């Protein structure tokens, strides 16, 4: 029988990168990122007793990470900056899943994209962070507790809003993401 401490260590070890990545989405400096990481670990510890293995461990971790960020005070949260790394594999899924060229183009506009994402609401940022993690609409719905169609609508709206903000046609070409509405 594995005790709580060992279980905690194992979960943190297996998911360290995932949690750090989520923290990096919201923090533009190491200190903020570390604080958020620590807060998420504390909440993992607190929630460990109620973990029954009903949800996948990754879903469970994402829930804690997202809920921790939502639990931070509005003021603190607004100050957090959404950060997208250059090497993020799923960045293209924001606009398009197909075409390396478009992805390259998208990466060139990374700074602009980050600025636009930082204008989004707290909830939209949370959804975007999960989308960038490569989660499907179904998995996102499972994390946030909305229905899958609702998540798809919300993501569609966010994408539309981002496209409008960009105001250029270069992101509009050939878009058929898996999260796109039919």
């Amino acid at each position, binding site marked *: 029988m594995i005790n709580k401490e060992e279980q905690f*260590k194992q979960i943190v070890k297996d998911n360290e990168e995932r949690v750090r990545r989520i923290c990096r989405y919201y923090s533009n400096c190491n200190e903020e990122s570390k604080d958020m990481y620590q807060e998420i670990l504390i*909440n*993992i510890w607190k*929630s460990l007793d109620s973990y029954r293995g009903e949800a996948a461990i990754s879903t469970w971790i994402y829930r804690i990470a997202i*809920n921790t960020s*939502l639990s931070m005070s509005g003021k603190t949260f607004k100050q957090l900056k959404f950060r997208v790394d250059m090497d993020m594999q799923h960045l293209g899924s924001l606009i398009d899943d197909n075409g390396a060229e478009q992805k390259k183009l998208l990466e060139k506009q990374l700074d602009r994209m980050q600025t636009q994402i930082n204008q989004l*609401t*707290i909830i939209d940022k949370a959804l975007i962070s999960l989308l960038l993690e490569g989660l499907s609409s179904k998995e996102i719905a499972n994390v*946030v*507790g909305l229905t899958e169609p609702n998540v798809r609508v919300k993501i569609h709206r966010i994408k539309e809003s981002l496209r409008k903000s960009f105001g250029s046609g270069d992101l509009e070409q050939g878009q058929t993401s898996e999260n796109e509405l039919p």
Partner: protein
Amino acid sequence: MNQLLSQLKSQDKKMWRMSRNFRVFYWIMIPVYTFLLVLYPSDDVVIIERLGGGCFVLSFVVFAVLFSKNAREFKTIDYSQPSVQMLESAVKRYRLWKPELAWALFAILFIDAGMVLMRIPRAESDSLLMIILNVQYVLVPLITGSFVVGIIWWYVKHKPLRDHALHLLNALKE
């Protein structure tokens, strides 16, 4: 990591100790008060005083249950729930009026009744109405003051949390 773990473990231990001490305190005090106020063998204590003591003990039991329920509710905030569910729990947890408050009012009524009943044998010349009014002179300002402090506390500490959770919940659901 090890430093964090030891902090978490000591926090857990502290919470467990507090909760245990709280339970022990009530489970000792309830029988002690029951003995002193209700069962104590004395010819000086009349039945009506014992009934008054019973009312005090009953209010004590209600408060014990309410406090331990409240402590458990705050201790078991589950961050692993889906966000909508977690936010709904937060809105519920930090609202001003809770069904438990009705039970608290019920317990206050027991205290009121207990004070009146315990005064009856000692108030030789006062009528029952005068005894009831005399008790209310003391109790009503005390209870009103407590409620005002409670509402101010809620407004400063809990209302912003409830508003924030409600705002996020509406944003998620819209």
